């Protein structure tokens, strides 16, 4: 069965989410991944939205992180502080984030393009809840398209913490120990982080993609984890659920 890059990314993201764990998501691809995971290997995955939606039975894809779909038939509709403090107490296993730029340590920029903060070239929304979720959740997942403009050597602005400047930097800054970036899922590959250097490395190439292609689209030096894997394409069942139940209007999977 043929599939597009977005369908592959969502399937990869969904497979990372384990049954009985918790995940804080936003709208878009991460939400689609969580919905797919619930309908495949992780029926007891607990979904949280930062505006206060807890364990909804999502009827359709939400448009806003705060809209009423995010607590449709939910276990609780609460406050943002309650959700964030659930994360700060150590109960949130995963979160999904994105950004305009990401560096080798998984730090993210969603604040400004241009290095003059007071007069930016492009003003972006800012942290929103991303900085909080990246500070508190055990494992940070990023789903993003892969190109040189996005995978940069130096961020214009460090909005949201990855491993900051490298090993030990999160803990030295005061962030909870044992937390940090875990996987980056792109349209080319699945990347992780080296245990010691905390720098990004390729774990798995998507079918038909070469290591050179990944390197050409990454501004920093990217390592690789041996033995290099080839990503398993989405199964027929995953595609069927994604297309028929999760995103029938192709809001997300039609973006390619």
């Amino acid at each position, binding site marked *: 069965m043929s599939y597009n890059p977005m369908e592959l990314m969502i399937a990869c993201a969904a497979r990372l989410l384990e049954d009985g764990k918790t995940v804080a998501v936003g709208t878009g691809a991460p939400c689609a991944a969580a919905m797919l995971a619930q309908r495949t290997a992780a029926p007891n995955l607990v979904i949280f939205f930062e505006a206060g939606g807890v364990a909804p039975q999502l009827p359709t894809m939400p*448009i806003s992180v705060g809209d009423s779909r995010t607590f449709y038939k939910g276990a609780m509709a609460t406050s943002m502080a309650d959700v964030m403090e659930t994360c700060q107490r150590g109960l949130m296993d995963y979160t999904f984030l994105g950004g305009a730029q990401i560096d080798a340590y998984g730090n993210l920029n969603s604040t400004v393009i241009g290095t003059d903060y007071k007069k930016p070239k492009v003003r972006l929304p800012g942290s929103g809840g991303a900085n909080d979720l990246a500070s508190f959740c055990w494992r940070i997942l990023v789903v993003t398209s892969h190109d040189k403009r996005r995978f940069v050597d130096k961020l214009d602005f460090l909005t949201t913490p990855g491993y900051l400047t490298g090993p030990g930097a999160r803990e030295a800054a005061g962030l909870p120990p044992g937390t940090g970036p875990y996987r980056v899922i792109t349209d080319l590959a699945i990347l992780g982080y080296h245990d010691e250097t905390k720098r990004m490395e390729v774990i798995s190439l998507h079918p038909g993609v070469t290591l050179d292609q990944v390197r050409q689209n990454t501004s920093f030096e990217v390592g690789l984890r041996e033995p290099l894997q080839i990503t398993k394409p989405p199964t027929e069942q995953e595609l069927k659920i994604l297309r028929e139940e999760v995103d029938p209007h192709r809001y997300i999977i039609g973006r390619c």
Partner: protein
Amino acid sequence: MTTSQGQLFSDPSANRARDQFRAKSKALVDKVSPVPDAVARLVHDGDYLAVGGFGGARLPTAVVHEIVRQKKQNLRFAGHTATHDFQILCAGNLTGRGQLLAKVENAYSVGLEARGLSPHARRVIESGAVECTEWSNYALAVRFKAAAMGLPFLPSRSMLGTDTFRQSAAKTIACPFTGETLSALPALYPDVAAIHVHEADRFGNCRIRGTTVADLDLARAALRLIITCERLIPTEEIRSDPTRTVIPFFCVDAVCEVPFGSYPGNMPYEYFSDEAHLKQWLHVQQDLDSFKAFLEKYLFGVRDFHEYLQLCGGLPRLQELRRQELLLHLGK
């Protein structure tokens, strides 16, 4: 240890706030008021303003429109989960009406989430004429919470090690018990806040359905509070089930009944967001002249919120949005 370089745009002193809260009347008096009167009486030039809801959900649109219509100047603003609210306020900058926004504490503002960035909000911030600091959504929620608790600050474990922290006015402190580094977040007592709720009585006792975002703390942190509600209800109903009161009357200075008051935003269990209108809203901003014409028609050219709703399709459109909210098209 990270240090910050941003300025604090409001006074975190709990003692100053106590004096102001002491002076406030706690009498059970009728506070029902038309929106224009409430805004004229309670929002002043130079005020620090905060708006409840979550961007495009449970938004006090009528108050935000009226603040722009009355050409309030030099406001400071809490950009906490702000989207459409912030972007309406930006209509008071660079449109020939002086400078409505002077300072913004930004956690999330220029974006309208998945719908894209607001071209005019970008124009306003990228001009450099509005002084900004950076925060995270939770950091601003904690700042409201500190104020709601009557404290000058609260610690948290977010923003550490990042440029977000460097451009904020937070400080780091060592925990007196464990020695760990924490962010110290200054209390935020807005001069005035506006919150839209489902139901309120004429004294200001409020009920909210769905997520509360940061509004229960914001209501208690604000020195003055304007409530808009979908429906006024009898006080007997409030008193028959006080567990449902989430904002008490003594926090509230004005109660304005505004049916469909969150439009074009979503109101949980009532009506969904008007995505077509929001799309148009972003589209017309690409060109400043077409945006000015849009504002002339939809904001300055209307007498009140009711006229605005009429212009946006009136009852038939609102009925459609109610069907969307209740998922009737899915047969649920």
